[in-house]
């Protein structure tokens, strides 16, 4: 489904020109489209989701295989892994920056292509809806990290990311809501089964992103 509707010649196509049958159906379609365009952020790119998923899977793979990171306890018992831990944080930051960068770039491109402004009232709404849960989660994770509760970091990232998606879903595609709920569920599961942390993280940030990305791409971008 293509959402963009050209609004050029808006005035010339007035439905109520005499001797022409008024097109009420088009009026309604256009009213609905304007309401949707002005309240929902529809530049979200499915492709960005797929890419984010690939980055996350790569990051999880590097953490597990190369850096041998798979905490099965809530708290870090010894301090000899401190150096490795910082590398994990580095990997996480790289994944985050790549995923965000790709998402912003592709959404911007999609907006330009459909003749919309990328940064408009709906974009601001999406950002503010995401920010509160994400910043809360980020600060909490920082606190967990400094206290050595590394086993809780992956679950926390899933839970707060899920809350952010859930909160944002009312301003974008409806599918984002169920995606958020899945992330929250994975986060809660891995809070209890700490040993599954990395696996759940790879599922949540990797597989879920790729599946939803493909789905959104085929549903909304043909």
């Amino acid at each position, binding site marked *: 489904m293509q959402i963009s509707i050209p*609004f050029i010649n808006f005035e010339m196509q007035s439905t109520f020109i005499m001797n022409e049958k008024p097109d009420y159906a088009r009026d*309604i379609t256009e*009213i609905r489209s304007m*309401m949707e365009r002005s309240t929902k952020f529809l530049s979200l790119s499915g492709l960005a989701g797929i890419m984010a998923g690939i980055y996350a899977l790569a990051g999880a793979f590097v953490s597990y295989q190369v850096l041998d990171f798979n905490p099965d306890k809530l708290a870090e018992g010894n301090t000899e892994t401190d150096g490795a831990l910082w590398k994990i944080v580095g990997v996480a930051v790289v994944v985050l920056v790549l995923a965000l960068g790709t998402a912003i770039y592709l959404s911007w491109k999609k907006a330009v292509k459909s003749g919309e402004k990328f940064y408009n009232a709906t974009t601001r709404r999406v950002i503010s809806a995401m920010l509160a849960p994400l910043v809360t989660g980020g600060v909490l994770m920082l606190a967990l990290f400094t206290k050595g509760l590394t086993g809780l970091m992956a679950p926390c990232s899933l839970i707060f990311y899920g809350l952010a998606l859930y909160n944002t879903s009312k301003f974008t595609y409806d599918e984002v809501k169920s995606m958020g709920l899945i992330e929250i569920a994975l986060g809660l599961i891995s809070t209890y089964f700490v040993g599954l942390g990395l696996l759940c993280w790879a599922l949540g940030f990797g597989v879920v992103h790729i599946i939803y990305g493909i789905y959104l791409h085929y549903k909304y971008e043909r």
Partner: protein
Amino acid sequence: MKISIDGLHKAFENRIRLGIMSVLAVNDMLDFNSLKDFFDITDGKLASNIKALEKEGFINVKKSFIGKKPNTRYYMSKKGKKAFDDHLKALEQLLKSQK
């Protein structure tokens, strides 16, 4: 075929005005630039259409300052909401009778 024009307000014959009302129906309050993002028209054209709706009493203006810059925000009045809802109902009615 008999076409009833009851409820179809003259102010909404213009598509830009109909568009402005649609946007304001689902957004609490928008300033000029936010409103402009949704239309592919010039400032002057948008302003004149806003003026027309304002004159009709369908939208209200709230003027304030952000720092030293004046900021004008628009929102739908109760009268405008009713007129827009009636217009929508009339459109739906007409659509039904056309089938």
